[in-house]
């Protein structure tokens, strides 16, 4: 059973930043092709996001699987809501749904300019 402490940490993280990516490695040094692809898609949208390297935090890694009822990484959260993993983010980007979601949720997509 997961302690409440790690769930509290996750809640705090996904509330602190509009867009949060839990990934393997970092945006500059991704340790997995799916994490790298997701970082690349987010980069294309121009959104500013906070990332956490789950490879360095086993408690967070296991907590996230249970918290979101989602078994794999990366995991993208927008405004506290789980959007999905690499396949979903990529499909949503290709159909324009990802940018529509950011607009609808009032997420700033001018990170490159800021």
């Amino acid at each position, binding site marked *: 059973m997961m302690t409440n402490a790690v769930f509290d940490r996750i809640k705090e993280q996904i509330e602190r930043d509009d867009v949060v990516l839990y990934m393997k490695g970092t945006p500059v040094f991704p340790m997995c092709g*799916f994490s790298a692809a997701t970082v690349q898609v987010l980069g294309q949208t121009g959104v500013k996001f906070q990332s956490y390297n789950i490879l360095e935090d086993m408690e967070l890694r296991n907590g996230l699987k249970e918290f979101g*009822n*989602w*078994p*794999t990484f990366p995991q993208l959260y927008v405004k506290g809501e789980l959007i*999905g993993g*690499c396949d*979903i983010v990529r499909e949503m980007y290709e159909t324009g749904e990802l940018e529509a979601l950011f607009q609808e949720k009032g997420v700033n997509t001018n990170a490159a300019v800021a």
Partner: protein
Amino acid sequence: MGLVGTAIEAQLRASLAPAQLQVIDQSAQHAGHAGARDDGETHFLVEIVTPLFEGKRRLERHRLVNEALAELLRNRVHALSIRALTPAEASSQAR
């Protein structure tokens, strides 16, 4: 298709009544990467079409697939890519 791929296919057929199903072993593309094993069968792409996805968002569709394969994902399969469509979506994409 190896034993793991066959198990994925059987599990999905039993759980999700697919109208179309393709399980593609992509392990060779990931040889030597994290999670790869010498005996392969670690990375798969699943393309699945089922009426059970109707009215469900992507997240919920992927959850159904992940749940059907939970045991295999936990113990054997390192990575799973999913394309999850309803029959109507599949036929409009095929056109």
